[in-house]
């Protein structure tokens, strides 16, 4: 499979649980690289991942990974990795034994499985602790074991479901670095599911946004984040006059709490803001760039 060919393809994918619609006619394709699937809880991210892995059958439509339907051909799962969001680790065994077992489960011979388990634990920073029972690990260490078991068999594609869940800022930073390194250095493509915009921005090349089971946005992360840039002006009074003055200069501004928000600004906007402030004599307290909150972004609907 060439690097430009899609590794994952969803066509008109729907999944219903009785009256609840988890996915509603979603279509997208994912090629090599790190792709983020972004959405709030219940948006359909985990359902989509489970369908790709063959754990769920779609109500309609199709989902293929590496050119195969994983629920019909379980062999393809030997080239897939999965790091679930929830707890899934055996408490009584050591990380070394667990990863060896998981490598064998993906079809690797036992001697290779042992070597790869040690290598993977070194990659995820758990080499020194590898003989301790997993039950005694911290949350961050457990997340690393979960990542390790997803990578130990050298998959072509790995699904990471909320990999930073429960981590402190340092642990989160380290996890995202590991994810990025996994693709950059080892060529493993990644689908990273998250509800945190910052995680996806930092780590992914492309992004897919789901809301209520529907595809809201998809595209390159660079384009996507640029689109979300705003400038916030905090002014005590004369806010309406300022909006009108900006509009005369071709700039749309919206009232937002104690100030105004200007969307998707380019460099010239700052000159116009200065002129409008001088014209209206509005008392400026603060002017700062601001990223739109994820919830606001989703409210925009399909784009």
């Amino acid at each position, binding site marked *: 499979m060439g690097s430009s060919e899609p590794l994952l393809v969803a066509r008109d994918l729907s999944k219903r649980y009785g009256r609840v619609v988890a996915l509603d006619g979603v279509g997208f394709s994912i090629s090599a690289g790190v792709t983020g699937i972004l959405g709030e809880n219940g948006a359909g991210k985990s359902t989509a991942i489970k369908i790709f*892995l*063959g*754990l*769920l*059958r779609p109500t309609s439509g199709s989902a293929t990974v590496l050119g195969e339907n994983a*629920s019909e051909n*379980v*062999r*393809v*799962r*030997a080239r*897939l990795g*999965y790091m*679930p969001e*929830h*707890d*899934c*680790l*055996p*408490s*009584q*065994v*050591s990380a070394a*034994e667990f990863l060896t*077992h*998981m490598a*064998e*489960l*993906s*079809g*690797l*011979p036992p001697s*290779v499985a042992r070597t*790869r388990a040690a*290598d*993977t634990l*070194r*990659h995820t920073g758990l080499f020194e602790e590898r003989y301790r*029972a997993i039950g005694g690990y911290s949350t961050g260490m457990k997340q690393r074991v979960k990542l390790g*078991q997803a*990578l130990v*068999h*050298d998959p072509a594609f790995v699904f990471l479901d909320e990999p930073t869940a429960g981590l402190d800022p340092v642990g989160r930073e380290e996890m995202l670095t590991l994810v990025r390194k996994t693709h950059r*250095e*080892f*060529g493993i493509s990644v689908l990273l599911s998250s509800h945190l915009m910052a995680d996806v921005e930092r780590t992914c090349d492309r992004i897919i946004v789901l809301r209520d089971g529907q595809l809201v946005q998809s595209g390159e992360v660079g384009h996507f984040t640029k689109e979300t840039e705003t400038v916030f002006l905090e002014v005590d009074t004369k806010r309406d006059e300022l909006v009108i003055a900006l509009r005369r200069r071709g700039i749309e501004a919206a009232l937002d709490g104690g100030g105004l928000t200007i969307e998707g600004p380019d460099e010239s906007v700052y000159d116009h803001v200065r002129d409008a402030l001088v014209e209206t004599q509005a008392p400026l307290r603060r002017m700062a760039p601001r990223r739109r909150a994820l919830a606001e972004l989703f409210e925009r609907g399909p784009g």
Partner: protein
Amino acid sequence: MSGTVFDIGYRSYTGVREGRGRSRLAIFKNGVRIAMGMGRGGRAKILPWTFIGILSFIGLVLALIAGAAERLAGPGATEQLNLPSHSDYYGISSLVLFLFAALVAPELLCRDRRENTIHLYLVRPLTGSDYVLARWAAFLTVMLFAAWLPQVILFLGLSMGDPAPAEYLRAHWLDIPRFLASGIAMAAYATTLAMLTASFTTRRAYASVFLIGLFVITTPFTAGLANEIGGKTGQWISMFSLTNIPVHVNDLIFGDVSEITEEAPARAFSAAGLVGWYLLWTLGPGAILWARYRRLSP
């Protein structure tokens, strides 16, 4: 002198991938390790090895008694005194074997579901059917080890205790295939019932308590009730003595009645009836167990 440490780290893998067969074997091996407490702390080893010790001790005691009788009362004393032998062993030790299954087998299924590890297994090249069959085979193997080892000890004891070991082997070699076949019947029955019970709960303790209740309570209860009521109804009630079901098959294999089933009214049923009843209680729960795990793979 200083050396250089090379951190090879994570590398891409281009070697052989053995597919679904290796996955099944991995689940099987892991199941055997869980059952025997291997790769786990000392506490995990206590239960299985204590039971294997008790079962072996029973076999050893039977061998010592027979050996002493042969030496004290002369050759052939074991048979003349009707001392317990291979045909009696599974009857004598059945409750211990069932307790072993009740306490250890659920660990192979319950913990994977309680800790959600099964979700990681089922995204590997493995179906729910592969998983449960491999786990079942793993515990069956452990049960066979626990069932056969004391019989082997007993056989060695009896043949070495006999003043003419070669003669003993010639006369009793058929006991070997018999105790092997009977051991399979005992192990398959106990494994299947224990695994089915374990498939309904994520807590090993619940499964164990239920199974112990089932094995320990039904045996005296059905025995008492069957004898009190008597007749055909009594025979049918006796059939529900869960510990006796595979022992009847053991009796058929050895062509002898073991001490535990000697008084059981169910003995009056035909050989086909007893075997059919055993198969119903083994294949039926096995089919339900398989169906429960098959659903996990869409």
